[in-house]
C-alpha cells in the first residue's frame, strides 16, 4: 500500500452503494471524500423493508444462481444487461455473508442459519431479511464500517453538503465537484481523481411517493444537464402496496405478501350474486397469486379499482390482509412495518386488513453506465439506484438492496483502477476550481434574490400531480405529449418563483428552488422517453389510442386486430377497449424488434429538451420469451 | 489506562449505600430509643460511650466524616451534571431522580448544620454530652428545629432508599424492568417505614 500513490475519490451519496464503494476504495488504498445531504446513517437505503435476494439455498428447494438470474431477467422483461445481472446474482450470497460478518442482525431459523422468505416474481425462498427493516440494518452495518475507516483516516465525511455539479478539466474529464454546505450555505469546489455518484432515485419528482424527501434526483439531473446520458428513465416502478398519505406514501413491504398476506376487494359474485371477498391477484394469476411482480400487481389493482369500480373509492384503496396470520409470527417477521402502520393510520393490521394503493417507488432507469459503472463522461461514475443497470423494465422486490450493494463493489475498485490508469488528464487548476465555484455562488445568489409570485413547494406539488396524472401505471401518447407541454410551462413558471428567505444561513428554501428546477428537467426525460417508447414492457404500460392506430401501416393494424380480438375505441378518450363487456383497456404489446434497446437520453441545453436515442445492450444469455405470470415460468 | 471516573463513581455508590447507610440505620436505631423515654435513650448513648475514645474517634472520622465528605463533594459534582426535567417528563423514576438530587442539596446543608451544631459545637466545644434531656429541650423548645430535623431525616431516608434502587441498577443486579420495579417498590416501602419510625420517635418528645 505504501508504494501506491494516494488517490482521492469523491463519492456523492451515503446510501448502501456509496458506502460500499467507499469501503472498497479504502481497502484498495485510496482516500474518499464522502458527500451527503444528511448524516449517511439517515440515507434512504434504510427505508428498504423486505429483504435482499441471494441464492442461499438453505430451504431444501434446490434454488440456484441461474434461477435467480433468470427470474431477474424475466422479471425485468428482458431489458436488463444480462452480463451485469449475472455478475450481480453470482456475488449475492457472498455479499450476504459479508453483511452477516459485519453484524447485520438477520432473522434466523431455530438452528441459527439465515432465514429466507418468499418475494414477488420468484418461486423459491431466496430473500434474506432482518425482520421488516432489512435496509436499515444493512445500511447501519456499512455505516459502522465506514465510521471505522473514518477513524483510520481513509474517509472524510462531508455531511449536510449538497452536490451542485461536476467540474471537468480541459479534456472534458470529470475531476471534481462543487458542493454546498447546507447549514452555512458556503459553496466550495473539491478536486478529486474520480467522482462516483451514488445519489439514489428521483422519487420526489412525483411528490408523494415511497421515497424520502431527499430522493429528488437533483444530482442526476445536474450531471445530465452537464452531458451525462440517462438510461431507461421511463421505467419507474410503482409499488402496489403503499399507505397513501398527503405528505408521502409509506411503503408496506412486499414481505407482507411474501409472508402470506392477501390482496382483496369486495365484489358481487358473478354467479351467486352474493357479496364476497375477491382475491383478484390469486384469481388473475393462479401461478404466482399475490406474489406477482410489482408492475403486474399495480396494474391489476388499478384495473380493479379505477376501471372496474370495485374496492374503495375516494380515496382509492384495496385491502391487504394479514389478519389471518398468527400475531406472534407477524410480530417476529414483520413487526417494524406493522408498528408503522399503527403509528400512521391508527389501526392494528394484526386485526383488520390494511388499506393500501400503488405508489411510485423506484426508478429502474438512471444515469447510463457501462458494466464497470462508468458514465459517458470520463472520470464520472454512477452506482446504486441513480444508475440504470441491473433491473431492466421492472425490478424484482429485494433486488434493490442487492444491486445497490453490488454496484458499490464494482464502482469502488473500478474508480481506483481508473484513478491509477493515467488516463485522466490534468488535475483541475486553481482557476478552474474557482471559476466553477463562482458560477454556483452566482446561481445561488440569483435564486436567493428571486421575487416572483410563485411558491416553489406549491409548484413541486403541481409537478407531482402532473406526473401522477400522465406518467404512472397506465400511460398513453396523448397524455404524455400533454405532460411534456405542461412540464415546459412549469419550467417557464419556475423563473417566477419568489423566495421569502433571502438569507445565507441554512436557507433550505433557496436550495429547494435549485433542486426543483433539476426535478422538472428530469421529469421531462422520463416523459419524453415514455412518449417515444411505443410498446408495453415491464413498468411501462401504454394504452393503444385511436390516433396511434391510425398512424400504423396495414400490416401492423392487421396484426393488432388479430391479436386483440373484438375491440372498440372509446369515443371520449380514444382508448382501445375490448368488446367482451368488461371494457378492458388494450395495451401495446412488447415490441422486441423495435424496442429491445436501452433508451438513452441526453440533454439539449438550447431547448431544455431531452434527446432520445436507443442503444444495444447484452442479452445473449437468455432468449427473450413472453412474460406471463398467470402460468408457472418456463425456461 | 486508569478509569478514575469509573472507580470514583462506583466508590461513591458503595460508600453511599453501605457506609452511610449504616450510619443512617445507627442514627434511626439509637434515636428510636427515645420512645422508651430518657433512661432508655441515655442508656443507649452510654453504651456507645463504652467504646474506647480513640477507637470511637477513629470510627467517627474513618467511617462517617471521610465517607460523608467524599459522598457529599463528589455528589455535588454529580448533581451539577443533571438538568432535572420532571416537569416535562413526569415519570415516577424521573421524579425520584430529581428528588435524589434535591434531597442531596438539602442534606449537604442539613448535615453541615447537624454535625456542626450537635457534634462539634455542643459536644466537642461546649463539652455538653448528648442526652435525652438535651434533645428534648432542643426540640420542644423550638418546634421549628424539630420540623427541620424531621425534614432532614426524611430527606436522608429517601436519599438512602432510592439509593438502594439505583445501586441495584448501577451494579447490574436488577436488570429487567420487572425486577427493577420490585426493587423500587421494596425500597420505597422501606422508605415509608423508616419515615414513620422517625415521625413516631420525634413525636414522642412532644407527648412525653
Amino acid at each position, binding site marked *: 500500500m505504501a508504494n501506491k500513490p494516494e488517490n482521492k475519490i469523491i463519492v456523492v451519496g451515503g446510501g448502501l452503494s456509496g458506502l460500499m464503494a467507499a*469501503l472498497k476504495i479504502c481497502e484498495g488504498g485510496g482516500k474518499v471524500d464522502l458527500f451527503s445531504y444528511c*448524516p449517511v*446513517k*439517515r*440515507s*434512504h437505503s434504510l*427505508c428498504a423493508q423486505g429483504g435482499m435476494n441471494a441464492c442461499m439455498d438453505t430451504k431444501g428447494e434446490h434454488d440456484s444462481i441461474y434461477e435467480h438470474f433468470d427470474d431477474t431477467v424475466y422479471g425485468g422483461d428482458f431489458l436488463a444487461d444480462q452480463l451485469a445481472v449475472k455478475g450481480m446474482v453470482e456475488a449475492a450470497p457472498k455479499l450476504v*455473508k*459479508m453483511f452477516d*460478518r459485519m*453484524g*447485520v*442482525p438477520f*432473522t*434466523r431459523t*431455530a438452528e*441459527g442459519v439465515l432465514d429466507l422468505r418468499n418475494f414477488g416474481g420468484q418461486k423459491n425462498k431466496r430473500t434474506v431479511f*432482518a425482520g421488516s*427493516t432489512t435496509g*436499515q*440494518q444493512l445500511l*447501519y452495518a456499512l455505516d*459502522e*464500517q465506514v*465510521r*471505522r475507516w473514518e477513524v483510520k483516516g481513509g474517509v472524510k465525511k462531508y*455531511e449536510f453538503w449538497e452536490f451542485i455539479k461536476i467540474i471537468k478539466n480541459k479534456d472534458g474529464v470529470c475531476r471534481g465537484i462543487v458542493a454546498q454546505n447546507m447549514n452555512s450555505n458556503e459553496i466550495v469546489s473539491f478536486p478529486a481523481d474520480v467522482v462516483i455518484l451514488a445519489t439514489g432515485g428521483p422519487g420526489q419528482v412525483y411528490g408523494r411517493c415511497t421515497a*424520502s*424527501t431527499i430522493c429528488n434526483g437533483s444530482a442526476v439531473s445536474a450531471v445530465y444537464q452537464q452531458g451525462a446520458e440517462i438510461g431507461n428513465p421511463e421505467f419507474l416502478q410503482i409499488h402496489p402496496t403503499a399507505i397513501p398519505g*398527503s*405528505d*408521502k406514501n*409509506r411503503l408496506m413491504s412486499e414481505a407482507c405478501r411474501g409472508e402470506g398476506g392477501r390482496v382483496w376487494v369486495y365484489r358481487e359474485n358473478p354467479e351467486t350474486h352474493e357479496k364476497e371477498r375477491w382475491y383478484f391477484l390469486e384469481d388473475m394469476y393462479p401461478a404466482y397469486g399475490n406474489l406477482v411482480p410489482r408492475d403486474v400487481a399495480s396494474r391489476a389493482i388499478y384495473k380493479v379499482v379505477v376501471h372496474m369500480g370495485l374496492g374503495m373509492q375516494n380515496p382509492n384503496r384495496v385491502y391487504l390482509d394479514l389478519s389471518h396470520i398468527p400475531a406472534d409470527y407477524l410480530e417476529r417477521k414483520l413487526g417494524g412495518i406493522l408498528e*408503522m402502520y399503527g*403509528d*400512521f*393510520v*391508527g389501526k392494528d393490521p394484526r386485526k383488520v386488513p390494511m388499506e393500501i394503493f400503488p405508489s411510485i417507488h423506484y426508478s429502474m432507469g438512471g444515469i447510463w453506465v457501462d458494466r464497470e459503472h462508468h458514465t459517458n463522461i470520463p472520470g464520472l461514475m454512477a452506482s446504486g439506484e441513480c444508475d440504470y443497470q441491473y433491473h431492466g423494465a421492472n425490478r424484482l422486490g429485494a433486488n434493490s438492496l442487492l444491486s445497490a450493494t453490488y454496484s458499490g463493489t464494482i464502482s469502488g475498485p473500478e474508480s481506483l483502477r481508473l484513478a491509477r490508469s493515467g488516463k485522466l488528464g490534468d488535475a483541475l487548476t486553481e482557476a478552474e476550481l474557482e471559476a466553477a465555484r463562482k458560477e454556483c455562488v452566482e446561481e445561488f445568489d440569483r435564486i436567493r434574490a428571486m421575487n416572483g409570485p410563485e*411558491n416553489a413547494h406549491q409548484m413541486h406539488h403541481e409537478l407531482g400531480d402532473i406526473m401522477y396524472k400522465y406518467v404512472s401505471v397506465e400511460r398513453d401518447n396523448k397524455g404524455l405529449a400533454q405532460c411534456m407541454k405542461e412540464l415546459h410551462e412549469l419550467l417557464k413558471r419556475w423563473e417566477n418563483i419568489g423566495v*421569502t*428567505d433571502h438569507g445565507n*444561513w*441554512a436557507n433550505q428554501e433557496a436550495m429547494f428552488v435549485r433542486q426543483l428546477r433539476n426535478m422538472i428537467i428530469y421529469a421531462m426525460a422520463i416523459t419524453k422517453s415514455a412518449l417515444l417508447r411505443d410498446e408495453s414492457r415491464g413498468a411501462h404500460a401504454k394504452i393503444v389510442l385511436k390516433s396511434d392506430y391510425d398512424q400504423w401501416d396495414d400490416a401492423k393494424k392487421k396484426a393488432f386486430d388479430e391479436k386483440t380480438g373484438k375491440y372498440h375505441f372509446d369515443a371520449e378518450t380514444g382508448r382501445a377497449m375490448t368488446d367482451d363487456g368488461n371494457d378492458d383497456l388494450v395495451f401495446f404489446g412488447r415490441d422486441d424488434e423495435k424496442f429491445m434497446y436501452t433508451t438513452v437520453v441526453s440533454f439539449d441545453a438550447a431547448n431544455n429538451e431531452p434527446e432520445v436515442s436507443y442503444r444495444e445492450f447484452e442479452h445473449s444469455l437468455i432468449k427473450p420469451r413472453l412474460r406471463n405470470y398467470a402460468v408457472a415460468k418456463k425456461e | 489506562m486508569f*478509569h478514575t*471516573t*469509573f472507580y470514583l463513581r*462506583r466508590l461513591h455508590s458503595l460508600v453511599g449505600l453501605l457506609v452511610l447507610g449504616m450510619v443512617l440505620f445507627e442514627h434511626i436505631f439509637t434515636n428510636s430509643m427515645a420512645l422508651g423515654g430518657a433512661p432508655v435513650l441515655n442508656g443507649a448513648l452510654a453504651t456507645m460511650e463504652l467504646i474506647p475514645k480513640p477507637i470511637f474517634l477513629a470510627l467517627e472520622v474513618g467511617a462517617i466524616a471521610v465517607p460523608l465528605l467524599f459522598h457529599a463533594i463528589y455528589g455535588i459534582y454529580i448533581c*451539577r*451534571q443533571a*438538568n432535572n426535567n420532571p416537569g*416535562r417528563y413526569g*415519570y415516577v*423514576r424521573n421524579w425520584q*431522580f*430529581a428528588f435524589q438530587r434535591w434531597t442531596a442539596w438539602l442534606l449537604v446543608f442539613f448535615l453541615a448544620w447537624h454535625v456542626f451544631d450537635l457534634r462539634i459545637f455542643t459536644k466537642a466545644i461546649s463539652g455538653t454530652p448528648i442526652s435525652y434531656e438535651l434533645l428534648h429541650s432542643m426540640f420542644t423548645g423550638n418546634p421549628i428545629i424539630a420540623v427541620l430535623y424531621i425534614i432532614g431525616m426524611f430527606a436522608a431516608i429517601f436519599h438512602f432508599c432510592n439509593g438502594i*434502587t439505583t445501586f441495584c441498577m448501577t451494579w*447490574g*443486579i436488577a*436488570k429487567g*424492568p420487572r425486577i427493577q420495579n420490585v426493587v423500587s417498590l421494596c425500597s420505597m416501602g422501606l422508605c415509608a417505614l423508616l419515615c414513620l419510625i422517625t415521625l413516631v420517635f420525634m413525636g414522642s418528645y412532644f407527648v412525653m
Partner: protein
Amino acid sequence: MAEQKKVRLVIERQDGPNDKPYTQEFEVDYRPGLNIVAALMEIQKNPVTVDGKKVAPVVWECNCLEKVCGACMMVINGKARQACCSLVDNLEQPIHLAPARTFPVIRDLLIDRSVMFESLKRIHGWIEVDGTWDVKDAPIQNPHTAETAYEISHCMTCGCCLEACPNVGPQSDFIGPSPTVQAYLFNLHPLGKFDAPTRLNALMEKGGITSCGNSQNCVEACPKNIKLTTYLAQLNRDVNKQALKNIFNK
C-alpha cells in the same frame, strides 16, 4: 358548508446558533391523519403567520417520514419525538414545537447531532471484520441473541433519549443512552465479542456509562421501544466485571 378546521402551531424559532429564540404562530388546515412534518410542509407552501406576516419558512430536518431515519426529532408539546409520526389528532392544541436544545441549534428546529456520531466512534461501534472480501462463511448465531441484537439495532440515532435524559446536555459530558447501549449490540455478535473489552473500557471513561443516573427517561422516550434501561443495567454488570478483570488479571 362546515368551516375548515384549523391546526394552530406555536413554533420556537431561532435565526442562527447565537441568535435569540422567538416564537411564531401558524395555522394550517386540519385533515385526518395530519402529522407534524406534513403541517410544516403546509407552512412551506404558504409561510404566513397568524398575524398575516410573510416570513421565511420554518427550517427543520426530515428524510424518510416513516420513523426509521431519525432525522425529524424535535420537542413537541414538551417531549422529544419524531415529528413525522406525531399525529395532530393525538396532540393537545395549540401544538408547541421547539428544537431539542440538548444539542446545539443551527436554525429554527434544525439541530446539530454530530456529537452522537462521534460517540459511536468512541465506543468502537463496529465489528472488526478483515474486509469486505469473501472469507467463505459467517458464524452461525443463536437466534435468540440475534433477536436482542435486532431490537438494539433499530436505534436510529434520533437523539430522543439524549434530549429526555437529564444527565445529557451542555452541563455534562455523558455520551447518552443511545451510543452507550450500542456498545452492547456489538458485544453480542460472535465476532464483535472479540473487542468487547475495548468497548467496555471505553464505557468506563469520563462521560461513559458511569454518568448514567438511572432517571430512566430514555426507555420512555425511545420511539423504537428499545429496552434501554435493561441493556444499561446489563452493561453496568459487564463493565463491573471488566473492572475486576482489569484489576486482578494483570
